[in-house]
């Protein structure tokens, strides 16, 4: 029981990070029909920015805001400079561009921050990557024999708050209505006066910032940041988006949490077959399984329209 609870909590906490990145994937996908392959690397860039701010002695709260604003600008600039010019040609062209961006951003991070794990004693003033939540070894509650850390509860709460804020944005604001309208029918959106380009730019910015938050939180749990930090997280987040449905923000969150839990349960209970190293295979199995059984995902809408 204690072990089950432990794995559940660990899974939800890990899954929360996948959820954040999956939210980014979904916001872009439903806005434009594009899969942003660079979602994880955009997040990594934000993660490094927050590290750098820490090195310069900026308080964590400000550092986080600066990191997320940088992420927003990066996402918005990507849409304007790279995606929009090729989007007219084909969805496939955009996909290739985001793959290029995936490599380019990783190279850029390497050029600025090097390929070592940071922080390290040779280069950094910080002892560990800043965590948004208390994470001393004693920061946990003992519940039914499981260690529930403040950090895992904090991360889960953060994701729920972000989800709620996004829900309010989409359903209670004019910008949200415009985003949904553009996602639903771009031509008609222009006909009612929505500046679709600006809305898409905002969507990419928002997606990159939310993913960036995921990167910062994730680096906080591993205490470090390095160039490979987001590779597997992006795979898990893609699995989460596939499971939840590529056009459903709520689905992305549920999908992320589910992937986190499934993965921890499978790796924990079937460790002689799966083990920690093969966790990622679970994500691939989920992707294949969902695509075979319910291609639109749990909460996605299959495109059906009465004519």
């Amino acid at each position, binding site marked *: 029981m204690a072990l089950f609870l432990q794995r559940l909590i660990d899974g939800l906490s890990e899954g929360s990070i996948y959820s954040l990145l999956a939210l980014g994937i979904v916001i872009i996908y439903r806005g434009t029909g594009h899969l942003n392959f660079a979602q994880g690397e955009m997040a990594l860039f934000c993660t490094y920015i927050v590290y750098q701010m820490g090195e310069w002695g900026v308080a964590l709260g400000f550092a986080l805001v600066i990191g997320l604003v940088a992420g927003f600008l990066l996402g918005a600039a990507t849409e304007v400079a790279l995606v929009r010019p090729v989007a007219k040609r084909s969805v496939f062209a955009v996909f290739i561009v985001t793959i290029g961006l995936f490599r380019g951003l990783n190279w850029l991070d390497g050029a600025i921050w090097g390929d070592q794990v940071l922080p390290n004693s040779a280069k950094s003033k910080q002892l560990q990557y800043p965590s948004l939540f208390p994470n001393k070894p004693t920061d946990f509650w003992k519940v039914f024999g499981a260690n529930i850390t403040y950090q895992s509860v904090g991360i889960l709460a953060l994701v729920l708050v972000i989800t709620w804020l996004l829900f309010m944005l989409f359903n209670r604001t004019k910008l949200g209505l415009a985003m*949904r*309208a553009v*996602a639903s029918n771009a*031509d*008609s959106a*222009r*006909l*009612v006066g*929505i500046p679709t380009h600006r809305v898409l730019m905002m969507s990419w910015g928002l997606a990159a910032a939310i993913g960036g938050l995921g990167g910062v939180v994730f680096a906080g749990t591993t205490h470090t940041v390095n160039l490979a930090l987001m590779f597997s997280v992006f795979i898990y987040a893609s699995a989460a988006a596939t499971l939840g449905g590529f056009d459903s923000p709520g689905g992305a969150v549920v999908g992320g949490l589910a992937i986190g839990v499934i993965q921890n349960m499978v790796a924990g209970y079937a460790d002689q077959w799966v083990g920690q190293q093969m966790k990622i295979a679970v994500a691939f199995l989920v992707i294949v399984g969902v695509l075979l059984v319910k291609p639109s995902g749990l909460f996605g809408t299959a495109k059906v329209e009465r004519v």
Partner: protein
Amino acid sequence: MTLLRTSGLKAGYGPVTVLHDLELEVNEGEIVVMLGANGAGKTTTMRAISGLIARTGTVWFGGHDITRSAADIIVRHGIAQVPQGRGTFPELSVEDNLRAGAFVRRRGAEVDADIAKWFEVFPRLAERRDQRAGSLSGGEQQMVAIARALMSRPKLLLCDEPSLGLAPLITKELFEIISGLNREEGLSVLLVEQNANLAMHMAHRVYLLETGRIVAAGSAEALSADDSIRKAYLGF
């Protein structure tokens, strides 16, 4: 007073030019009907005026040159389009469709009042206000598209084949509503219609379009009196 005037309007898709030096006018308070066979360029004309496709020549509206304005700016000038094939936001609720139609307006209270007004005009939409627009019947979706276009309080309504795929009774109902708006609120209308007989009844003036050019223009009575036109477009 001339509300809309195009001169030397050229537009098309990629290398294909569909409209050749199109000249047309809509005066304030007028219902103008554009007739033409399939492929004559009726929908292209609508899309060129509303700015959805690239165009050259000149488009004047309400004293402004809007040739270079983007679609979302043209709406702010007071042109609203009901696109062909409805073009609602299928994933959005009926009410959100109308709310999106009022995107260019600022005063929330007036927008709410207009939504209530259109729900009175189209009681069937009121019943389905929380339903996704894509799940509505064809006629209901057309009502959503018209109400949505009018939510921006346009001076000119571009209506692209509102009767497409609709039962004759519903078409008649829609046309009566459009005529009513014209009479009571002075709404100008440019209407593209296959159902020529019905459209001619409400038209003040008619244009005949053939392969991207205006080949005849005049009052509905004058054009109906012309034998060749009557045979080709009115079928009697």
